[in-house]
């Protein structure tokens, strides 16, 4: 028996007596006998907390987390940025952690205001007017953006740059089986998207263009070219941005994006083996009634005091049911609150500083690795925090060898980026990497790729 249920035997007896029952079993008399489990579930008996914690520590000990013993040079949508004690402490406050969706705004102003601040911060970063209260992750955000774009344009053709995170593209394809959207893969040329090739291949105008900035290989796309395709065809421009790089890059809104999505993990979340992360979603005000998920708005209470509440609720599944703009209900609110705290900590100067320091560290690391015999750039366009290399050996093998030397060297690129050679490696360097770590990594790399 766990210590989380407060019932004494006396309580149970009194409650059963009140109900006119003689046993707890009788509570389930409504369940047909034939269906009721005769034995148990076949799970082991419960363990005391310290034993469970020990078991989980054993499992944790069988992993190699990033840190001093495995210095992180991997990214691909999951980055080792600084997460200060203050972000962890504030984001662990049980009022934020153990509350539900703010259905009763009078007792949920804490979460509602934090999300309102988050929405404001995301709007400022993206250069758009409206941001929602979060989605599951980057992949979910791009799916919702495509659905918005298809609904707004009335066309199901979706041109997706091959520079989009490949996992996100896979999710788009998975969900297209239901939506009927036509996902067209637009190839890269020299690291950035070749929209002209798509324009000539397609026999129908697209409803949506999706491009990442920076893209999966770390390259800076020509968003003006993507915008021009949209202007010519009437498609909506969806830009997958990176919130840390946004500290130094022109905002997607400035480039004319209609919808901006992104992965917000870099804003204060640990690597977490991939989740919970944070799907960022912003759009122009013109599309606000198609916005997926929750939106917090400012209003007043009965005494005229400033207050916050979830709004434009008529878009959502619990009200619109089969006509809702999205099926999302539970989102990643705690991660949105975490991001608001982290962006508050970084502030105007800190976010830019992280972006610039990451770019300098990546630049320094790239120069060092390119000096290693047999290592070449996979592409030559400008990059910030992340870059792609061509190795003289298989990239997966290099990652294994370097893990033995204490480095998570990066992510082996799939064949679509390397023409089947398996020699492409994606390396990310954040502001947390020191010159000494980078120098040691380059030295180990030299041995590993021999």
């Amino acid at each position: 028996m766990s210590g989380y249920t407060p019932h004494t035997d006396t309580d149970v007896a009194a409650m059963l007596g009140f109900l006119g029952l003689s046993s707890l079993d009788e509570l389930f008399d409504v369940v047909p006998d034939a269906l009721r489990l005769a034995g148990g579930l076949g799970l082991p008996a419960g363990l005391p907390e310290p034993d469970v914690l020990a078991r989980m520590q054993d499992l944790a000990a069988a992993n190699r987390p990033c840190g001093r013993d495995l210095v992180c040079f991997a990214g691909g949508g999951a980055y080792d940025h600084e997460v200060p004690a203050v972000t962890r402490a504030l984001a662990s406050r049980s009022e934020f952690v153990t509350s539900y969706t703010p259905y009763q705004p009078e007792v949920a102003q804490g979460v509602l205001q934090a999300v309102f601040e988050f929405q404001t911060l995301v709007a400022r970063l993206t250069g758009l007017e409206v941001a929602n209260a979060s989605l599951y992750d980057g992949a979910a955000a791009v799916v919702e953006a495509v659905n918005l774009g298809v609904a707004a344009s009335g066309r199901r053709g979706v041109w997706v740059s091959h520079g989009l995170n490949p996992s996100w593209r896979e999710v788009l394809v998975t969900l297209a089986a239901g939506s009927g959207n036509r996902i067209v893969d637009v190839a890269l040329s020299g690291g950035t998207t070749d929209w002209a090739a798509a324009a000539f291949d397609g026999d129908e105008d697209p409803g949506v263009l999706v491009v990442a900035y920076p893209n999966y290989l770390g390259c800076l796309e020509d968003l003006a070219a993507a915008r021009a395709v949209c202007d010519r065809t009437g498609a909506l421009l969806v830009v997958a941005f990176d919130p840390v790089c946004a500290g130094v890059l022109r905002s997607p809104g400035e480039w004319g994006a209609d919808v901006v999505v992104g992965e917000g993990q870099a804003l204060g979340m640990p690597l977490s083996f991939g989740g919970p992360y944070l799907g960022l979603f912003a759009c122009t005000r013109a599309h606000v009634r198609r916005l997926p998920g929750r939106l917090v708005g400012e209003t007043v209470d009965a005494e005229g005091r400033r207050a916050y509440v979830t709004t434009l609720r008529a878009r959502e599944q619990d009200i619109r049911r089969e006509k809702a703009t999205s099926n999302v209900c539970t989102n990643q609110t705690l991660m949105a609150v975490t991001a608001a705290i982290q962006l508050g900590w970084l502030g105007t100067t800190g976010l830019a500083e992280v972006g610039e320091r990451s770019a300098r560290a990546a630049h320094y690391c790239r120069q060092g690795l390119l000096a290693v015999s047999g290592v070449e750039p996979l592409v030559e366009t400008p990059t910030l925090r992340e870059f792609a290399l061509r190795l003289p050996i298989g990239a997966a093998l290099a990652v294994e060898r370097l893990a033995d030397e204490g480095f998570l060297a990066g992510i082996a690129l799939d064949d679509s980026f390397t023409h089947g050679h398996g020699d492409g490696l994606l390396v990310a360097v954040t502001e947390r990497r020191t010159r000494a770590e980078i120098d040691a990594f380059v030295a180990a790399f030299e041995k590993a790729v021999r």
Partner: protein
Amino acid sequence: MTSGVRGEDSHPTGAPAGGRAASAPLLGRESEPTLFELSEPGRRAWQLRTTGVPDVPIGRIIPDAHRRERPPALAEISERDLVAHFTRLSHRQFSVDLGAYPLGSCTMKYNPKMCDAVAALAGLADVHPAAPTSCTQGWLELLVELEEALCAITGMAAATLQPAAGAAGELAGLLLMRAWHHAHGGTRHKVVIPDSAHGTNPASVTIAGFEVVTVPSDARGCVDLDALVSVLDEDVAGIMLTNPNTLGLFEQDIVAIARAVHDVGGLLYYDGANLNAILGVVRPGDMGFDIVHLNLHKTFATPHGGGGPGAGPVAVSERLVPFLPGPRPVRVTGTGPDARFGWATPAQSIGRLHSWHGNALVLARALAYILVHGDDGLRQVAELAVLNANWLRKRLSSTFDAPYDRPCMHECVLSASTLKRTTGVKALDVAKRLLEEGFHSPTVYFPLIVDEALMIEPTETESLQTLEALAAAFERIAAEAAEPGGAEAAAGAPHATPVRRVDEARAARHLVPTYDAR
């Protein structure tokens, strides 16, 4: 705490109620300024590592065409003010840790702190999701163990852990349904849903490319079997059911329903929102379901985070296993300490559903919760949840209408219909009044088929004393409603909260979605 002076009316049994938050100083007669109003140019909180990396001018790395002219304006604030701001915000927020949260359909039970400690382990939290399997054996084993436990609990063959929430699980399940029919030469268009279903069900059906067919509930509050049979045909891909349903009632005809749906070649989807009621008692697989989603943030006590993150794993019967999303964590070789784990994608997989492997730290918490409860403990969760709900149902059935007056499972749905007719006090007013009594409100106006619905789910972690205090608060609210001026007083509630009744219409009419739009 033990002042010795207790209002008799608030504790009719004389015992203090652990889950009543009336004594908490929810501060704030004044509104909290935003981060942006607290900002002062020149202040900062950030501190970054000394790296020794050469200080190359950024213009040499990033071309001018791509560079911002100036950094995005965020806020400039000291760490001290940042902490004060978010701490004050937290004081304006109700939570399970503060008091009872009988929000029907949401299973807001106590979240064990041990699970927080698990999620904070560096060996779990600091693992990169793309690390090679040689670095992630512990995570893979954890996920496989969780999948096996969830299959044991639901009576299914295998599961995907990728869906990040219940609605994502629904979509995954419907895509599995589509893929299965497609592989068997069918293109079915319709999915049947009872009129008592959660809104996510019909929304997911549309997004999965199906058409919704709604079947009514009968006088008992269950699926009308005749009505169901009349809509079943060769174009029905399947049915989505919640059992116990959203009225908190067990669908006793489930075996007949399953047979009818299977007879026309359809599949049965189990919405796991209410699984807490039947843990260790009856399994969806034994009821005839083919696809089951679980809400780990409900049944398995992972904290809801003010709206998320959750996790919505989907378990399936043997015939659907080849279609599960990939990559899946799998046991590659060996058993016990010699086991090796890796990733595998099923042959006819519907594809990937998440950027990585799902909300992993939520999954880790859920496994810890399952291990600490074990076989007997999980059954006890269901027993006490159902006991608590029935106690409240019986106690309150003379205060409110009980449209379905028979034993319920983990939650009960009452109605303020008569109260509204006789006093003018609506379900919404009851909800707002309850806030100032130190409890969170129940779910109101859902399910849609009940007029002035009050949907109350106490969960197993509230004590008898808390239930008594909660019931007394409901009774007091109803009694006050009947007094002269009662309706006006209730319509003015709440008073003792950080803000009073919030103007929702104005928020929609004059949309202010950001600080900059003010």
